[in-house]
């Protein structure tokens, strides 16, 4: 099945700094999602982005499907951005059974 790898595994930022999180996947995909898990465990949808670029406020994401990676950009980070960021892709590259990466733990310090 598909392998989903995220980097870096953890990241510490000063408030106001920018960061880039990476997600590599081993197969072609028709679905790629980014999530933020807050300290209370809630999984929040950030982007559904099988290809192309999307922006939502301080966050943006780019997926280069032909090269099998996706990037999540966080600009002007805030302490509320802390938590774990997951990317997920479908098993076998297609369908709805998501395989999650190991996550990136982000800590934003004030």
């Amino acid at each position, binding site marked *: 099945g598909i392998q989903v790898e995220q980097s870096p595994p953890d990241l510490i930022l000063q408030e106001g700094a920018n960061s880039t999180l990476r997600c590599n996947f081993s197969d072609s995909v028709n*679905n790629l*999602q980014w999530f933020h898990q807050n300290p209370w465990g809630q999984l929040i949808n950030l982007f*559904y982005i099988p290809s192309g670029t999307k922006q939502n406020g301080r966050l943006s994401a780019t997926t280069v499907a032909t090269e099998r990676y996706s990037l999540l950009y966080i600009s002007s980070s805030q302490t509320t951005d802390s938590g774990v960021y997951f990317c997920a892709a479908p098993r076998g590259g297609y369908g*709805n*059974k998501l395989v999650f990466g190991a996550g990136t733990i982000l800590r934003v310090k004030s």
Partner: protein
Amino acid sequence: SAVISQKPSRDICQRGTSLTIQCQVDSQVTMMFWYRQQPGQSLTLIATANQGSEATYESGFVIDKFPISRPNLTFSTLTVSNMSPEDSSIYLCSVLGLAGGHEQFFGPGTRLTVL
């Protein structure tokens, strides 16, 4: 946007007992799933909850341990049976098909501790 709720939000249980977790969506969805997140780990798919038929389990998960029901398009339950401390995890339901979209959305999770 649709609301996905889970009950209970957390529980502490004794080994050997069972717990049933409920997932309710306030609009009809095409698919519902159950995931497990063990402490400090990522999410792993347990099964697809099929409406009106037996759930489809992933490798490593069996119906006797994790019986699942889905009586209609907005509700599903997951039972964790004969629990052991290794079952301590967050259990999350997810749904697909809100407003006809392809994104999965997750419930708030049930944090289970087994003593």
